[in-house]
């Protein structure tokens, strides 16, 4: 049985310890009169809070990748429901149901940008989403900021036999080059065009996990 602490538990412990130490200085600030007390104050009032804040930021960044995080806004409910469409032609549903992507990070896996600082950019966009959710006007229908980039598909599929040797992908040498250059969209070129289909959910059957 593993006894390793989870990052969140470790963070809670560290927060608790820091609060106790800071409270000690708040109650007895005269402790800092000595040289040792000054060093303690520096650790407790500067180093520990910085470490705890950094760990907290890291934990929140990890949590913000979770499917549960994205679906916590009601406006995303149909998109979450579309992951359960009982039809393998629907790309997100097929990926989710067959565990081709981590189910607990389904949205993030396909919708982050696989470029330098892609995660940071995704978080900045997320902040804008929160603003729109609570203070702005939610566009109908919700649309991507830019056309879906093949780069996000190729992050996993490039090099995979099913992709590299796929009959359609290799039918003409120019096709593969166009796909990899993002000139021929995986989604909108007519090959894998069935995605979330939130406007038609009422007409579709759904998979119920056992």
């Amino acid at each position, binding site marked *: 049985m593993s006894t390793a602490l989870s990052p969140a538990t470790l963070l809670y412990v560290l927060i608790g310890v820091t*609060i106790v130490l800071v409270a000690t200085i708040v109650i007895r600030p005269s402790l800092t009169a000595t040289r040792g007390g000054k060093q303690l104050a520096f650790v407790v*009032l*500067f180093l520990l809070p910085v470490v*705890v*804040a950094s760990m*907290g930021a890291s934990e929140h960044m990890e949590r913000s990748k979770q499917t549960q995080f994205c679906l916590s806004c009601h406006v995303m409910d149909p998109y979450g429901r579309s992951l359960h469409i009982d039809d393998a032609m629907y790309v997100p549903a097929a990926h989710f149901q067959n565990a081709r992507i981590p189910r607990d990070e389904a949205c993030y896996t396909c919708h982050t940008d696989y470029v330098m600082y892609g995660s940071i950019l995704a978080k900045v966009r997320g902040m804008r989403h*929160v603003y729109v959710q609570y203070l702005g006007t939610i566009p109908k229908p919700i649309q991507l900021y830019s056309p879906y980039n093949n780069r996000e598909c190729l992050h996993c599929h490039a090099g995979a036999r099913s992709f590299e040797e796929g009959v359609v992908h290799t039918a003409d040498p120019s096709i593969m080059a166009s796909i990899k250059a993002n000139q021929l969209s995986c989604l909108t070129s007519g090959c894998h065009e069935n995605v979330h289909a939130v406007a038609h959910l009422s007409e579709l059957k759904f998979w119920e996990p056992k």
Partner: protein
Amino acid sequence: MTMAALMERRLRISGMLIVLGLLVEALSLIRIHPLAFLGFMFVGGGFLIAGIAMYLYSLVSITAPPEVK
């Protein structure tokens, strides 16, 4: 108010701000929700930065009295 008393007062305020920030951070970890993230970033982070800044300011702004020879 003596320098020592002023220093202690600032340390108290700094400590209380940091404790508030840490409590907000602990609370924000209870739920996985965008508002928890924002609370952590802006409310908890704000208290923490204010507390740390107050502590650092107290270090540089309060000078010890000159030693008597």
